[in-house]
C-alpha cells in the first residue's frame, strides 16, 4: 500500500513539475533561423514541417522521382534549384503534388502538413510564406543522413558555408551605392 502511494505521489510530482521545466525551457528566446540568400541566378525553396498531428508519419519530399530529403516533424531544409516550374511530390497511401514557380535570386516557402487518411495520415505539401515559417522558431535542420540522393538540399555544412558567404554581402552591396555619391 505504502509502495503504491509512493509511486502515485512520484508520478503526480513528475507530472506537475515537468510542464514547469518545459515552460522554463520554452521561455528561452530561440534565435531566429537564418536562411542564406540563394546563389546568383538560382532560386531556393525552404520546406518545413511544424510539429503536431501525425508526427510519426513520414513526409519525404521528392522531385522527378528522386528523394530530395525527408522532413520529420519540427524540421526544415533548404533546397537550391534552377529557376522555373518545379513539381514536388510526397507519398504515403496517396500521392500529393505541389508545383511552384521558382524565381531566380528569391526564396519561396512550402510546408508539409499531415491530413487525415483512412488507414494512416497523409502528407500534404502546400505553398507557404516566410511569416508562417518564422512562427515556428524551434524548427531544426534535417540531418544530413536524411537528405538526398536527389540534388538540391543543402547539407548542414553547405548551409553554414552559404550563411558565412552571404554574411558580408550587405557591406559589399553598400559599397557600390556610396561610390557614385563620392564621385559626385
Amino acid at each position: 500500500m505504502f509502495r503504491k502511494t509512493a509511486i502515485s505521489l512520484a508520478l503526480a510530482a513528475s507530472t506537475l513539475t515537468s510542464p514547469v521545466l518545459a515552460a522554463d525551457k520554452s521561455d528561452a528566446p530561440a534565435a531566429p533561423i537564418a536562411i542564406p540568400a540563394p546563389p546568383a541566378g538560382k532560386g531556393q525553396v525552404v520546406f518545413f514541417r511544424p510539429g503536431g498531428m501525425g508526427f510519426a508519419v513520414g513526409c519525404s519530399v521528392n522531385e522527378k522521382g528522386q528523394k530530395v530529403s525527408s522532413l520529420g516533424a519540427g524540421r526544415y531544409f533548404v533546397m537550391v534549384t534552377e529557376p522555373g516550374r518545379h513539381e514536388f511530390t510526397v507519398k504515403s497511401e496517396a500521392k500529393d503534388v505541389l508545383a511552384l514557380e521558382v524565381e531566380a535570386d528569391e526564396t519561396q516557402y512550402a510546408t508539409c502538413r499531415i491530413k487525415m487518411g483512412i488507414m494512416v495520415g497523409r502528407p500534404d505539401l502546400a505553398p507557404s510564406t516566410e511569416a508562417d515559417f518564422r512562427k515556428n522558431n524551434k524548427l531544426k535542420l534535417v540531418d544530413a543522413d536524411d537528405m538526398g540522393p536527389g540534388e538540391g538540399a543543402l547539407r548542414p555544412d553547405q548551409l553554414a558555408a552559404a550563411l558565412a558567404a552571404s554574411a558580408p554581402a550587405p557591406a559589399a552591396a553598400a559599397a557600390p551605392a556610396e561610390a557614385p555619391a563620392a564621385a559626385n
Partner: protein
Amino acid sequence: MTWGQGLRGAVAAVAVVTCLAWHTSHAQDVATTAPSGAANVGPQPSSAQPAMLDPCVVALSEHRPGTCIPALTPIQIELAEPLSSRTSVTGQTFGLALVSPIVVGGNQLIAAGTTGQGEVVHAKKTGVGVGGELVLAARFLQIGEKRLRLRSMHLNGAGRDQQGLAFAVGVAVGFPALFVRGKHIDVPAGAFADAKTAEPFWVDVPADAAEKPAEPRSIEKVVTKEGVSNVP
C-alpha cells in the same frame, strides 16, 4: 582603307563602348535606388537566362529615342477575372492588368490598364481537413506587338485548414470525419498583386507622348525610378 574610313570606324567603336558603359552604370544606379522590396533580389537574373542581347543596349547603340525599363522594376497588377482553388486548374491562363503606370525618370512609359496574362501554376481542391491551394504566376504585359515578361508575382496561398475539426469529428464519430473539408482559397477579380519586370524593356516612344495617360488607381504605391534619364 582611307584615313577617313579608319577615323569613322574608331569613332563608332568608341560610341558603342561609351553607350555600354553608360547603360551598365545606370543599371547599378537603378539597383541601388530600388525600393527595399527589390533590394533582396540580388543581381539581375541574366545568369539564369540564356545569353541574349539586352534590348536596351541594342537601342542605345542604335541611338533610338526612348527609355529603358530596367529588369526587376516592381509593378502592381490586378486580376481581370476571379480565381479559386475550387474551379481553377493547373495550367489555366488568366487576364491581368497594370494598376499603376510604369514611370521612369518622370516619364510614363506604360499606361495603367495595360493588359497581360498570367498562369495558374498549381491549383488543388480541398482535402480532408486541409484547405485548397493556388499558386499563380504573372507571365507578361502586352505592349503593342511586344511582350514585357513578368516574374515574382506574390499572391500564392492555401485555404484555411480544418484539421482540428476533422480530428475532433474523427474521435467522436469516426468515418464522417473524412467529409470535413478545409476552406477554399478564392481570389476575386480586381485583387491586387505585386510583381516585377523580368527583363530590360526598351520603350521607343513614351506612352504619354502618344496618348493621354490613364489615371492611376487609388492606391498608395506608384512605381518611380529616379536616376534613369531619357536618351536625347
